[in-house]
């Protein structure tokens, strides 16, 4: 049976290197993907993900195992991503390299038409809408967990999520792609 996150976090905090590695392996892809869709740049996403795990391992003592580890790490990832983008803003325009199969061939290797259109559509959403989609579908958080992380009422989470999905659905329909 797979060791749960809370157990791994406790072991990692107590110095078990293998437990730390397991936590990293288990969550690195999702965290990188969250950062990628906020920062829209693969190098920035890599840097953000590295910062996230540095903070995670430094702050494991503050993780309360009564709550889902995914929600805890999602909060860190979101804050880190948004802070990174905010700090980048005065120096340079938002890099829109992601998604671009032209400049990054193979970036979405094996991607079908649905994936290509959906990825592009997701990135056209304003940040408020994109964040709820990312937290729900990438991190699999509940409405309550998302509301806590975003510091907005649960009904606003639902409303934004519903609207975001409607917009994505309309984009797919306009482009003749079926989900």
């Amino acid at each position, binding site marked *: 049976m797979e060791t749960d996150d809370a157990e791994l976090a406790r072991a990692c905090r107590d110095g078990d290197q293998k437990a730390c590695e397991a936590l990293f392996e288990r969550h690195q*892809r999702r965290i990188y993907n969250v950062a990628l869709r906020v920062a829209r740049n*693969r190098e920035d996403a890599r840097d953000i993900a590295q910062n996230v795990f540095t903070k995670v391992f430094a702050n494991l003592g503050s993780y309360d195992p009564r709550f889902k580890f995914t929600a805890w790490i999602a909060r860190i990832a979101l804050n880190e991503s948004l802070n990174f983008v905010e700090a980048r803003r005065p120096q340079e325009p938002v890099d829109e390299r992601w998604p671009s199969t032209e400049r990054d061939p193979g970036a979405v290797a094996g991607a079908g038409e649905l994936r290509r259109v959906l990825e592009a559509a997701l990135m056209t959403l304003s940040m408020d809408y994109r964040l709820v989609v990312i937290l729900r579908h*990438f991190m699999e958080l509940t409405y309550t967990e998302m509301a806590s992380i975003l510091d907005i009422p649960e009904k606003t989470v639902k409303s934004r999520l*519903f609207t975001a*999905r409607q917009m994505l659905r309309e984009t797919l329909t306009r482009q003749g792609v079926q*989900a």
Partner: protein
Amino acid sequence: MNSAQGGLEPRLMDLVQGEIDGANTALESAELRDLIVRDPQAGRALEEFAALARGLGGLADVPPPAEL
């Protein structure tokens, strides 16, 4: 089932979204099943949004760089 705006009725939308997010109570799921039996459009809406949700979840599989 269509509203005056041409979209889905708000109650159906709530139930469909709640279902794909695993947030519906047993009672709400039963209400949705009942709507689906009475109106095929409700079933199509559920299928469409469930497929959209699967598609969105699938976007999270971009591999991180090896040096992460």
